[in-house]
């Protein structure tokens, strides 16, 4: 490892970071907006008790939500206490981490639009499938 290569690697990293800074900044601004403007009470109002619609709603709301996954566990626990089905809550906490609608512009810019869209759609569908499978397996034990 020589000094020339180290300098080259360092300058390359700084240059790349400069390029992605506006995107990262934009996402942080968007997430801050979301965290303040959407109150936690919003989540409890969207579930209807329908066994088919609720998991879909859970996955949808999880997909457009953002923040620490810990918040999704706490909200999920609250939703369970209020009688929301475990499948809906599981889809909610899963899509919270695996699908990122708010981060989609950043993901598209850095990893490609086709990749970002495909990955998010597949993750959305699989969050519902995994939720069904998890609860089904749990019921067998």
């Amino acid at each position: 490892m020589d000094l020339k290569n180290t300098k080259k690697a360092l300058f390359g990293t700084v240059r790349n970071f400069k390029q992605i800074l506006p995107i990262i900044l934009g996402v942080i601004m968007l997430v801050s907006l979301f965290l303040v403007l959407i109150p936690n009470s919003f989540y409890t109002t969207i579930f209807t008790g329908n066994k088919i619609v609720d998991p879909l709603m859970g996955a949808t709301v999880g997909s457009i939500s953002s923040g620490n996954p810990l918040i999704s566990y706490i909200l999920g626990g609250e939703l369970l206490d209020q009688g929301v089905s475990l499948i809906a809550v599981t889809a909610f906490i899963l899509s919270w981490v695996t699908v990122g609608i708010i981060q989609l512009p950043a993901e598209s810019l850095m990893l490609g639009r086709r990749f970002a869209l495909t990955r998010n759609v597949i993750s959305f569908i699989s969050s519902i499938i995994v939720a069904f499978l998890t609860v089904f397996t749990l019921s067998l034990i």
Partner: protein
Amino acid sequence: MINRFLEKISGKWIFLIVVTTIYIFLLIFNFHSFERVLIQFFKLIWTILPIFVLVFCLMFLSNLFLDSKKIIKYTGKSAGLKGWIISIIAGILSSGPIYMWYPLLSELKDKGMKDAFITTFLYNRAVKIPLLPMIIYYFGITFTIILTFYMILFSVINGLIVHKFLNLKKP
């Protein structure tokens, strides 16, 4: 005029301008919310700063030690089982917000990392080791084990599906 301006600036700046415009609207029409959003913004910056430094260091190390040949060997098209295991473990161990990892993944992709492994990495971020006690507390240990198993399994399935979709030839 606007079209010519938009042609000159790249997508990343348009994105930032759009979000900044929302902030300006908030500042004008709802100052109280703007204040709260701004406080949240700085809190978030402070929280992700260590991750930002970590990602910078990883990008620097990858620039220093990993060339395209190595990336292709471990996470390229012919990486096989090794590639899946690396992306699963790296995804589980990675912390912080998902968007902090896009720059590193973008660099690795440019050097030859397979889309399937990027998908697997990103999906495995759902498996959070430090948060396991919390998920066990809220949902129980059996639920957590089953969910973790399916998440890892589906990270690979998703990787394969995304790879298949992205490589579909146009009719």
